[in-house]
């Protein structure tokens, strides 16, 4: 399992290269901003008929992470679906697939701004949840003490050995983690955006996803 280990208020966490976060002590895997059904939503709005493979691609990667970590608990940290209608109109095969991933696991859906309400799928639906003293919610609260959130789709750019890299990234400081978007059809917000700079402490790290998880000082 490729990842970068760090601690958040004494809790050991592993940022996986895939963009998922693993908490060994709770056997918990957290993913954020799956945006399942995004292509379908765009089609419904009459905008474009994007290749309808993003749910398949996202679930494939999620399944791999679940296998690799043997996680017993899963938290989907909001915007799991591109909107509520997308959750309702998930194709049957993909619903079954999701259900099979949920089997034997404690599965928590956190509400996001795209999917603000219970979805018609197994699991627990919550606005936020506390696990071992850490708050899991979709959108970071500036006042939060120990918090893991998503929403911003952070990405970081940097030059390594003459190559410019721009990758979805975890932003991590002593009190919070902002998760990268896990979904295949997602853009990103650069870490030097004021919204992210204001949330993160000066000594924050960015952990780049991709083939390996690599930590660097958060580019700002």
């Amino acid at each position, binding site marked *: 399992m490729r990842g970068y280990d760090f601690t958040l208020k004494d809790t050991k966490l592993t940022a996986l290269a895939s963009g998922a976060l693993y908490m060994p002590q709770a056997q918990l895997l957290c993913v954020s901003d799956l945006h399942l059904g995004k292509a379908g939503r765009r089609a419904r709005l*009459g905008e474009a008929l994007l*290749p309808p*493979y993003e749910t*398949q691609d996202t679930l494939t990667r999620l399944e791999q992470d679940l296998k690799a970590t043997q996680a017993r608990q899963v938290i989907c940290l909001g915007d799991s679906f591109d909107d509520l209608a997308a959750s309702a109109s998930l194709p049957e095969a993909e619903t079954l697939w999701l259900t099979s991933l949920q089997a034997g696991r404690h599965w928590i859906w956190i509400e996001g701004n795209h999917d603000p309400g219970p979805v018609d799928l197994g699991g627990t639906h919550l606005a936020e949840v506390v696990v071992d003293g850490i708050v899991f919610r979709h959108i970071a609260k500036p006042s939060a003490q120990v918090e893991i959130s998503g929403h*911003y789709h952070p990405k970081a750019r940097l030059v390594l050995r003459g*190559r410019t890299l721009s990758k979805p990234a975890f932003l991590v400081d002593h009190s919070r983690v902002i998760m990268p978007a896990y979904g295949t059809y997602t853009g990103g917000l650069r870490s030097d*955006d004021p919204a992210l700079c204001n949330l993160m402490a000066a000594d924050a790290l960015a952990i780049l996803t991709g083939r390996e998880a690599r930590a660097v000082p958060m580019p700002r």
Partner: protein
Amino acid sequence: MTALPPAFETWFASRGWSIHHHQREMLARSDDPTLLLIAPTGGGKTLAGFLPTLVDLAEGTNDGLHTLYISPLKALAADIKRNLRTPVEEMGLPIRIEDRTGDTPSSRKRRQRADPPHILLTTPESLALLTSYEDADRTFNGLKRVVVDEIHALAESKRGDQLMLALTRLQALCPDLKRVGLSATVEDPAAIAHLLARHPDPCAILQADPGPDPDISMLTTDEPPPWAGGGAAYSIPAVMTQIEAHNTTLIFHNTRAQAEIFFHNLWLANEDALPIGIHHGSLDRVQRERVEGAMQRGELRAIVCTGSLDLGIDWGDVDLVIQIGAPKNVKRLVQRIGRANHRYNAPSKALLVPANRFEVVECQAALDAVRAHDLDGDPRGPGPFDVLCQHILIRACAGPFDASELYAEITSAGAYADLTRDTFDDCLKFCATGGYALRAYDQWQRLLQRPDGHWQLRDPRATQLIRMNIGTIQDTDTLKVRLKRSRGGKPLGEIEEGFAATLTPGDTFLIGGQIVRFESLREMTVEVSRNAAKKPKVATFGGTKFATSTQLSQRILDILQQPNWPDLPDHTADWLHLQRDVSQMPQAGELLIESFPRDGRENTVIYGFAGRNAMQTLGLLLTKRMEELGLAPLGFVSTDYATMIWGLEPITDPAPLFEPQILREGLEAWLAGNALMKRTFRASATIAGLIQRNSPSARKSGRQATMSSDIIYDTLAKYDPDHLLLSITRIEAMRGLIDFGRIEEMLARIAGRITLRRLEHVSPLAAPLFLEVGRTPVAGEGQERLLSIETDRLMAEAGLLQPTKGQPTN
């Protein structure tokens, strides 16, 4: 048969004009369903196209739209409006003429749809938009004629394909519509006629008297052209003399950068402060219009310009055209020469100025071709499918349609005459459902089939999005280069998109006389950092948009085969003789490869003569293959005639490198992950309507940047590799910058005959290639001087002596 009414006879007489034969002929044949007029500039082409309309409308009995005029340029539409008003007003004809372009106020556009003028002047994009309205049938009701101006230029691009598809629509609305095309001299009038006519109708071609042959020659200068470079700064004094001796001189350049440098140098040499202007596509519109105005008023003695002046706006009294740098294409040269002397029946006067020694041979080849009336051009192939997809969506905006009727309509466009029903159905399916192997959007498909079998938009509101994205013009093909924002973001210049696409971060190249390192491509800007220490690995692309044509390349090879070269200046003839002594001449029927050491590196020069784009692709493929074979290539540089690869190991057995099958496989592998493919995909996906450039709901939060088209490309390649858009992307990339077709052509030409010459030194023909490495399109004065020192040293090494400066060479 229509006779010229007395009022017109009187008007012609009052201007002191007599009607040209082809103008009378156009009038006489005004009932032909399609007519293509080929006439040189100044031949009264536009009036010829409009004469039947003016005569028809003179009686004042016509209501509504009579004639639609389409030009590739907004400016041309405005220019024609001015020119047409003269006869209309002087003869007091009851004719309303208006133009309609992207600049027309929307209130007037609305009014034009309900109450169109007699003559509407517009562009292909504005016409496509007009046909997308539900009331198109009313707007075009009674339309009798359509005149397509500068059709030779439109025929080379997707804009032309879109226009011809729009004409099929008009023809369906107005079955008696007559089509007229106006073209400059082209190599294959029948090909243009095929595009213009309703297939399979015949299209008569009227050839206006081409006038006397042009008076064209190579400019001879006291100083021989340099060994490399494209600036032709050496020719400034001679060009200045020519400007002084003529009324108005147009000085054409192949690239904007060269035009800028030349203009700068010309200005420094302009001791009498003659009014000289510059005009090219990268200049601000206000500045361009100022120059155009001054030209029309005859206030300028010379204009340094690029292809931006290729089209037929009337520029007044031009009596000399100078082409700086070898013309890459004979047809374009002939069209440029035609800009000189608008007085019909006087020969156009033109001078060619080779920018370097090899271009002397190229210019000679071009002169021979012009004198032999042997124009060139590569057939464009069948109409592209991305444009077809957009046409289907535009058709759907106008109302429900029957697929079979639409198919029949589309195949009446020449470019789509061979379109199979299967391919059409694939395109329709793509428009309707996305055309994915996985059926996903049945309930949300964009087009629905009604119970009566007609197709219609599922959501009528989709029309807005489709109309906002009509058109096929893509981003410019040059990219701005600037320092990274963190280093001040200073703009350095522009490089060609094709070159930028081959760069990976860390590559260094030359621009504006400095070595920079490629960092990233952001929002169509190439970001670089200064990097003085490194030797540039890949030279900046020459900046010539067009590769030397196949025909011209063949003529160059023919010249090289001559036993001696009486037509060439001595300096060039001597150079070629030396090549023959030291190595041998490249020839068409075999591939010459030279191999020699220099500065501790092994150099391999492949004389492929396949044109710059194909030679660039060949360089990429060969170095990749050499890497696999452990030949340690370090870099390469390509010109229209050769690719030079340098590395640590010599090539001793070249044949396996040129196995067509291996090259093709290399291409497949290279293409899949290539930035060029992704860029081509973005262009085709945008035209076909999968990605929208403009959207009414583009409330960009600024937060979550839109998903990149690369993700869509990667997803399709992974899950739906046979998808229509991927095959479209492949077709488009192959006939665009990759130009693999000409590599295939070269491989067929050499048929496995490869000659490897192992030399002790750089050969005379190869020597200038070393200078290509350090070449830049925006070289300053100092750069040019350094270049000349380095060139002399190199030439001495190759056993060549630079003739003394100032020595006459002819």
